[in-house]
């Protein structure tokens, strides 16, 4: 390849990059004015990409809630759905599209802490409130008074998993493999590490801390160095797809440690891809069918089974369901579709009965809720126990 062609190739690649990032930017002002009889709620979720299953499960819950409670203040609620493509930049774009093009009153989303952290500042600067369904990293709502969430946060989740490892599994040593490009995975790993050191009282109980990044398919390099360390547990939170392949490769290499993770593992794809290798994997999540907590849980379960008969009710659908109801409740209490008024009403949310539990938002906008421990057994997610917050 000579210099001239090389230059041309580079030019073409650059044009290509601009072409993909630049498309879909032209906006048309929607004709609907503010006085219309619809209230628009934006939704930004990863409907494609590495977290697609999570985003789609959440969306099912949101849509279900919208069907059951389609109105507020005598007006129809219209959902405007944007795909953030499991990409931080796309998430920011999606939020600004929702605000500028569709002029939504409030936003719901997103599965994945990194994605929520991409969208958060945009919403804050525009003064539009967002309610997250399952982003668990504390930084999502910290210093952002417009971001709320209906789930617990990772300092708690990390502690729950560490406690289970120490008390129920009797683990003394752990290795951590995190997805360094995923804020959720990095944050949760750090909280797990802190809690596990506290429980064991041993500074050296974390025998290895290794990294990979979203999209990697080969983890044998990292896993081989864990093999000879023989930790009791391996904590590997991350996207279900990568995690399932990681565990599979670990078993192929002969690693026998128990694998533990967080709420993202609760996706049918985790079982499909991981097959027999993920048997015995343990993780924490938000919700379980086995222990419905409020009367709304029962209502949600019944409606979910009717609408999506083929699918299991899952934590993400339940959280999507709750996020919608919390927003609707705030609009009702605010008595208007003004984003600022909705924000103020959201901040006051107290004792709201959702499908996943009683939701009270604290000064950071976080919900304090119990965590559920689940285990993979016989190709299914099996309920192990509930851990309440202290």
């Amino acid at each position, binding site marked *: 390849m000579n210099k001239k062609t090389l230059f041309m190739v580079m030019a073409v690649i650059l044009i290509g990059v601009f072409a993909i990032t630049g498309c879909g930017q032209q906006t048309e002002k929607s004709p609907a004015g503010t006085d219309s009889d619809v209230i628009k709620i934006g939704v930004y979720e990863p409907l494609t990409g590495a977290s697609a299953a999570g985003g789609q499960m959440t969306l099912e819950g949101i849509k279900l809630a919208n069907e059951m409670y389609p109105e507020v203040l005598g007006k129809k609620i219209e959902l405007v759905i944007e795909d953030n493509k499991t990409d931080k930049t796309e998430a920011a774009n999606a939020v600004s599209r929702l605000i500028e093009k569709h002029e939504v009153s409030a936003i719901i989303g997103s599965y994945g802490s990194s994605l929520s952290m991409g969208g958060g500042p945009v919403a804050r600067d525009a003064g539009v409130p967002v309610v997250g369904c399952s982003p668990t990293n504390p930084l999502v709502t910290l210093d952002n008074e417009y971001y709320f969430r209906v789930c617990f946060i990772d300092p708690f989740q990390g502690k729950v998993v560490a406690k289970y490892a120490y008390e129920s599994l009797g683990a003394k040593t752990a290795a951590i493999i995190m997805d360094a490009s995923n804020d959720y995975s990095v944050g949760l790993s750090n909280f797990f590490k802190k809690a596990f050191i506290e429980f064991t009282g041993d500074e050296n109980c974390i025998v290895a801390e290794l990294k990979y990044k979203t999209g990697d*398919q*080969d983890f044998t390099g990292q896993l081989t160095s864990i093999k000879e360390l023989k930790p009791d547990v391996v904590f590997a939170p991350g996207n279900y797809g990568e995690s399932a392949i990681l565990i599979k490769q670990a078993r192929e290499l002969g690693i026998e440690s128990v694998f533990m993770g967080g709420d993202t593992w609760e996706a049918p794809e985790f079982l499909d891809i991981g097959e027999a290798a993920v048997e015995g994997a343990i993780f924490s999540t938000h919700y379980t069918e086995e222990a419905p907590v409020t009367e709304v849980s029962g209502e949600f379960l019944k409606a979910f089974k009717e609408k999506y008969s083929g699918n299991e009710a899952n934590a993400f659908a339940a959280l999507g369901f709750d996020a919608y109801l919390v927003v609707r409740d705030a609009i009702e209490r605010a008595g208007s579709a003004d984003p600022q008024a909705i924000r103020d009403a959201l901040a006051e949310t107290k004792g709201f009965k959702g499908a996943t539990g009683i939701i009270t938002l604290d000064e950071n906008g976080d919900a304090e809720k119990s965590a559920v421990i689940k285990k993979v057994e016989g190709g299914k997610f099996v309920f192990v126990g509930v851990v309440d917050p202290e």
Partner: protein
Amino acid sequence: MNFQLFLQNLANGISLGSLYALIAIGYTMVYGILRFINFAHGEIIMLATYFVYFGILIFSMPWWLAFIFSIILTSLLGMGIEKVAYKPLRDSPRISILISAIGVSFLIQNLSLVIFGGRPKAFCQPSIFTKMVTFGNVKITSITFITPIIAGILLYFVTYLVNNTKTGMAMRATAKDFDTAKLMGIDIDKIISLTFTLGSALAAVGGIMWGLRYPQIHPFIGTMPGLKCFIAAVVGGIGNIPGAVLGGFMLGIMEIMLVAFLPGLTGYRDAFAFVLLIIILLVRPTGILGEKIAEKV
């Protein structure tokens, strides 16, 4: 790091490298004959994995039949892409075909996203490919043996075809000069079409082996392997078929060793491959096994 651990890492590297090698063969063959980088190669790989998936899911084929079905369908698709996107541009400057290839790549990617959906799906793994072989403390899955064997067979087959058959001679003649080849009575349309069909079949084999090793498929699954194998082909000397295999193995082993010995640099794994590409282009633009060819500009 003891010796057994090193061997395990080496085995892991060979496993990854053989996949790169397999895919790079298809890349380099198309380039070698048409002097054109098929940027849609990664997407053809991705489609091949989906064809297997649907073959099994919808037509409930046994896995081996699904593999054959996928290879045939992918080959036909490659032929179709050539007819629609590349053939009309045959007399245009080479850069137009390149742009067309990038267009095809995005088209297939986004079309797949719409048709197949973005949720990753599980690729089937027949147990014959996941059997464990243990040497002392070193564990190797059977696919680690199967992939290099397939890569070797295809390497032999393609080299033989290009160097020892009449069709191969026509391919080489076409590579040298379209017009002269035409004057010599070669049906260059047929030869180019055949090259693409063959290239796509090779991509399909690569894609299937990739899916067997990393059983998660989604519409973007071909992008990274596509780029990495392009790098492997350039490192080995683009257009040179044994070079592609060598480049693939080198890249795979180096990547694994980077992660194993310098865990702090794990995040730069992909960046490392591109740095390698830049270094090769600067130091030895023709690649390790590539010959210096005086090219007409």
